[in-house]
C-alpha cells in the first residue's frame, strides 16, 4: 500500500475538532481557560500543525477584533472578553478541521464503507466552488459588457446574473456526469482503493495525549476548580 504523509488521521481530526469546540465553549468562563488553550496549542505545534496555524492567524485577528468590538457596544468588558475567547475556541477547532485534505477524508470515509457517491459529492462541492467563482466573475463581466448596472436596473441585473448561472450549472454538471460515467463511476459499485489511510502510531499518541488533557480539564470543570 502506498502511504502518503499526512498529519493526523482525518476522521480523528474531525472528532477531536468537535470535542475541542464543545469543551472549549463550555470552559470559556473558567479561570484556567488560557492554560487550556495554551496546552492544546502546544500539542498541535508538537504534531506539526504550524502551517495551518500560520494560515489561520489572519482570520483569528480579524474576528478577534470584530466580535469583541460588537459585544462591547451592548455589553460589558467581561462579555467582550468572553466573546474573544469564543473566537479563539473556534480558531483552535478550525486548525484541526482545516488541516484535513479532502482526498484523505474521502479515502478514509471509503474505508468506513460510506457510499462512494457521498464522497464524490464532497469532492465535487469543494472543487467546483473554485470553478464557479471564476464563472461568476465571467458572468459579472458579461453583465458589465451589456451595459447593465445593479443600482439602475436591479431586476434586470438579477436576471442577467441568475439565468446564465443556471445555464452554466446545467451544462457543467451534464459534462461532468458524462465524464464520470465514462470513467467507470457508478452509484452501486464498490471499487477499490489506491492507498489506505491507516491509523498510525502518531495518531494513537495524539489521541492519548489529547484525551488525557481533555479529561484533566473536564475534571477540573466538574469539580469547580
Amino acid at each position, binding site marked *: 500500500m502506498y502511504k502518503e504523509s499526512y498529519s493526523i488521521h482525518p476522521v480523528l481530526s474531525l472528532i477531536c475538532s468537535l470535542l475541542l469546540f464543545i469543551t472549549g465553549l463550555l470552559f470559556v468562563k473558567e479561570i484556567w481557560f488560557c492554560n487550556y488553550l495554551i496546552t492544546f496549542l502546544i500539542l498541535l505545534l508538537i504534531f506539526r500543525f504550524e502551517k495551518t496555524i500560520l494560515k489561520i492567524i489572519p482570520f483569528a485577528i480579524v474576528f478577534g477584533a470584530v466580535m469583541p468590538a460588537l459585544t462591547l457596544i451592548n455589553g460589558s468588558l467581561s462579555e467582550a472578553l468572553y466573546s474573544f475567547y469564543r473566537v479563539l475556541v473556534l480558531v483552535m477547532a478550525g486548525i484541526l478541521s482545516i488541516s484535513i485534505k479532502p*482526498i484523505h477524508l474521502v479515502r478514509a470515509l471509503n474505508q468506513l464503507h460510506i457510499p462512494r457517491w457521498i464522497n464524490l459529492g464532497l469532492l465535487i462541492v469543494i472543487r467546483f466552488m473554485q*470553478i464557479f467563482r471564476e464563472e461568476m466573475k465571467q458572468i459579472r463581466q458579461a453583465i458589465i459588457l451589456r451595459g447593465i448596472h445593479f443600482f439602475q436596473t436591479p431586476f434586470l441585473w438579477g436576471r442577467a446574473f441568475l439565468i446564465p448561472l443556471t445555464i452554466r450549472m446545467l451544462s457543467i454538471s451534464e459534462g461532468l456526469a458524462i465524464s464520470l*460515467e465514462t470513467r*467507470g*463511476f457508478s452509484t452501486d*459499485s464498490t*471499487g477499490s482503493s489506491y492507498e489506505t489511510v491507516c491509523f498510525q502510531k502518531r495518531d494513537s499518541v495524539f489521541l492519548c495525549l489529547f484525551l488525557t488533557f481533555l479529561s484533566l480539564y473536564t475534571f477540573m470543570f466538574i469539580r469547580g476548580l
Partner: protein
Amino acid sequence: MSIAIEAKNISLSYDMAEGKSDLERHWIFKDLNFQIKAGEFILLTGPSGCGKSSLMNIINGVIANLKDVYIRGDVYIQGQQMTGCSVQERTAFVGSVFQNAREQIIFDKVRDEIVFPMENIGETPQKMRDNLNTLLDMTGLLPDAQTASLSGGEKQKLMTACTLAMGQKVLLLDEPLANMDRRSAKQLLTLLKQLSENENYTIVVIEHRQELVLPHADKVFSCIQSPLPNVNMELKIYENKRDYQPYVYSHIKQKENEIADLKETIFFVKDIDYCIGERFLFKHFSWEIKKGERWVIVGDNGCGKTTMLRLLYGFEKPTSGHIVSQYTKIEKRKSIGYILQNPDYQLFMPRVKDELYLHSTSPEFVEELIRLFEFEDMLDRHPLSLSEGQKRKLGVACVIANEPSILFLDEPTVGLDSESIEQVFYSLTLLKKRTREDLTTISVSHDKRAIPYLGNKILNLNKIEV
C-alpha cells in the same frame, strides 16, 4: 484484421412524435453503415452541428443521458453487440475523452485523478501503481502537480491519461485539441498514433483543426449534407486520406478593398508586462491602435489573445506599464461592444425580441439586423431554446444593435456554418456604415479562412518574444 467498431443502420432523430413514418420524421442521420478495423486512426470531421458528437455518443452510449432521442440500429464493438448496454457496461470496451477538461477534473493532484478510474473498475493497488507510472511517462505529467495550475493542453492530456488508464483498446475523442497549443496538440497526436500503430489501439478523433490531425490519420470520415430532404447529414468515407479536401466555405463574398485612414490613437499600450504566476504572457510589449483600424490578433492557444482584449477593455491590469486610452472608464463601457466567445454568458432575456431591443439605439437598425440574420420567425422564442449557431448569431446581433464605435470580437466564427459567417461579416459592414467609417474592430481568431475578412492588420502573438 479484426473489426473494432461496426455500425449497422444507425439512425438518429430528435423528433419524438409518435406514429410518424420514416419519411415524415426529421432525421439527423439515417441508416449509417461503417466498419472501423482494429489499429486504425480515423479523423471524423464536418461542419459544426452536423451530428459528429451525436454519432460518437451513440457509440459510447452517452446519448441516452443527454436528451430524449429516437435511435435505431446496432453498434458492435470488438464483436460485442452494444444495444441495451448502459454507459458503464460499454466502458469495458470503449473509452471516451471529451472537450472542456477543466470542468471534468475533480481532484487536486494529477496522481489522484489518474488513479480514480482505476479505483472505479476495481483494479489492484499494484496494477494501479504500474499503470500510473506508465501513463506519467507517456504524457510527461508530474504525479504531484496541482491540477488547477496545469495549462489547457496538459489538462487535456490528463483526461486522455485517465481514459487510457482503464485499458480499453478503442478510444473516441471529441474535439481534444480545442484548448491546446500546437506543441501539446502534436505531442498528444503523436502519442495516439504510437498507440494505434504499436499497440493496435483504434482511435477516432472528432476535430475541426483538420490540418493538425490529417498527417496522423489513416482514414477520414467526413460528414456532408445529405441529398434526402428529411435527413441532415450522411457519412462519406475516404479510405485514402489524400483524396480528402479540407472543408472550405462556399459563397464567401470577395473582400472589399479598404483604405486605412490614419486617424487619432484610441488605445496606446505602453511597454506592458503581464504575468500569470511565474509565466510571462507579455514582456515590454507596446502597441498602438488608431481609429478606424481593423486588427486581428492571431496566435496559438494560451498565448494571450483573449487576455489582450481584456487588458484593453480594462478587466485586467498589466503587471507593469499602462494602457492609455482617450476614453474614460464610463465612456469606454458605453462605446465598446464586446462579443464573447460563449453566448451563454450574455443571453438572459425572455424573448429574442427583448434581447435585440435591449439598449438598442435605433429600431430600424435592429430590424435590418433581424432580416439579415433571419430571426423573423424566432422573435418570440426564448433565446436559450435556439441552436448553438443561432445563439452565437444572436449574441453578435445584440452587441451590434447598440452601435458601438469600437468592437471587440472573441472568436466570432467558431461554431458557425458558412452562410452564418457571411451574415456576421455583412453585419460588420452594416455597422461600419452606421458609424460613418469610424468603426474600430479588434478580433481574435484562429480561423485562417476568416482572418482576411475580419481585418487587414494582424498582430501575431506567437512572434512576440517573451
